[in-house]
C-alpha cells in the first residue's frame, strides 16, 4: 500500500478552509466510510444513502467556514451534517415515495438486497445492546430525528421522563462507546 500522508486535524481543517483540493481527497479517504456508515444507519436504502453521502461532502466542502474548532472536533461537526442530511432525506417526499415502492416490491419478491444489515456495525451496534426502554428513545431521537415532545406524545410518556430516560440512555451509551 502506498504511504498516505497523515495530517493532524488542525492541519486538515486549515487546508479545508483554504479550499485546497488535495485536502478533499484526504478528507474523503479518511471519513467517507464512517460518514457512509452513519448515513446507512438512518437511510437503509443504498441508492438514497449514496445521494446523501454526496450531499454531505458537498456541504462539508462548502460550509467549512462555518465550522468552529472551539465548539468541537471536525468529525463531530461532519457527523452532525451527515445525520441531519439523512434525517432530511427521511422526511423528504422522495424518500416517502421510494419507501412505498420498496414496500410493494418487497411484498412481491421478499428481497432486501439493496439494504445493509446495519445493526451489526457502528452506532447501531452499540444502541442494539442498550436495554429496550433506552433503545427506543435513541432510535426515535437519534436515528429518526423526532423531538422529545414528539416522542412523549408518540409513546404516551411524560416529557420529563423522556428527557431523564434519554439522558440516562446516553450516559450508558458513552460507557459502551468507550469500551
Amino acid at each position, binding site marked *: 500500500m502506498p504511504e498516505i500522508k497523515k495530517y493532524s486535524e488542525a492541519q486538515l481543517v486549515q487546508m479545508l478552509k483554504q479550499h485546497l483540493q488535495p485536502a478533499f481527497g484526504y478528507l474523503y479517504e479518511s471519513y467517507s466510510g464512517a460518514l457512509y456508515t452513519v448515513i446507512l444507519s438512518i437511510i437503509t436504502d443504498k441508492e438514497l444513502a449514496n445521494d446523501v453521502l454526496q450531499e454531505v461532502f458537498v456541504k462539508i466542502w*462548502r460550509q467549512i467556514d462555518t465550522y468552529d474548532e472551539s465548539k468541537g472536533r471536525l468529525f463531530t461537526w461532519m457527523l452532525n451534517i451527515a445525520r441531519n442530511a439523512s434525517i432530511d432525506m427521511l422526511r423528504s417526499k422522495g424518500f416517502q415515495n421510494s419507501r412505498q415502492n420498496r414496500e410493494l416490491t418487497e411484498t412481491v419478491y421478499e428481497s432486501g438486497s439493496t439494504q445493509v444489515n446495519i445493526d451489526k456495525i457502528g452506532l447501531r451496534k452499540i444502541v442494539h445492546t442498550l436495554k429496550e426502554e433506552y433503545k427506543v428513545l435513541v432510535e426515535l431521537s437519534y436515528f429518526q430525528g423526532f423531538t422529545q415532545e414528539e416522542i412523549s406524545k408518540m409513546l404516551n410518556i411524560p416529557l420529563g421522563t423522556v428527557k431523564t430516560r434519554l439522558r440516562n440512555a446516553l450516559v450508558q451509551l458513552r460507557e459502551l*462507546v468507550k469500551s
Partner: protein
Amino acid sequence: MEIKEYIKSGIIESYVLGLASAEEAADLEIMMQKHAEVKQAVDAFAEALEQNILRETVTPPAEIKQKIISALFTAEQVKTPSSTTATYTLSTQETPVVKLNFWKYAAAACVVLFLISAAFNYYFYNSYQSANGKYQALLTERTSMQASINVMQTHLEEMTTGMHIMNNTETRKIKMSGTPGHETSFATVYWDTQSRNVYVMADKLPKAPEGKQYQLWAIVNGKPVDAGMVSDCTGNFCKMKNIPEAQAFAITLEKQGGSVAPSLDQMYTMGNV
C-alpha cells in the same frame, strides 16, 4: 461538585450527538469556556465516538468520490497550495448534487449555444455589411443612370422638336456663313414664318472664351435687333426670341449676358433671309 454532576448528566453526549436543544447547547458552550473539565469531557466523548465509528465502516461505492469531485471542482475554481493570498468566495448555497450537475450541463449548453450564436452573428453581420455595400453601390449607379437617362431624354425631346421645326414647310432655313477671318464658323437659323419663332443651330462656332457669349441678331431694316443669347440653351438647337420681321441674321461674340448693340468687329457669321 456541581460541574461533575453536570458532566455526568448526559448533556455532554446530547451535545456531541446533536440531540441537545439550542438552549442546552448554548449553555454547554459557555460551560466549556468557563470550565476546562467540561471541554475535556466533550472532547473525550467526541474522540471515543469517532474512534468507535471509524473502527468498523462500510466503504461507499467507488464512483461516489468521482461524482463529488466533479460536482465540486469542475464548477468551482480550484486553488493550488502555493496561492494562499488570493481571496476565495465561497458558494454556500445548499444545492443537491443532482441539481448541481443539471446546472453545470445547462451552463455548458448555454456557453455552447452562445458561441454558436456569436459565430452566426459574426457571419450574418459580415453578409449584411457586404450586401449593404453592394446595395449602396447599386443605388448610386441607379441615380447616375437616371440622371443620364434624363439628359438623354432632354436631348431626344430637343432633337424631336428640332426635327419637327426643320421638317415644317412653314420654316425657313437661313444659312449663316463665316465672315472673313472666321471662315470655319457656320450656323443655321430656322425661322417659323407662321409663329415667327426663331431657332438657331450653332454647333460650328469656336468655343466662346471665358466671360464671353455668342449673341444672335436680327437685321430689321438695317438695324440690329437682339434675338437672344446662343449659349443660354444647353443643346445645339436653341429656341431664340420671337422676331416678327428680318432681312438677315448674324452672330457676334459679346460679353457675358449680351450687349444692347452688336460689336461689329466680333461678328462670326451672317446670312440673308
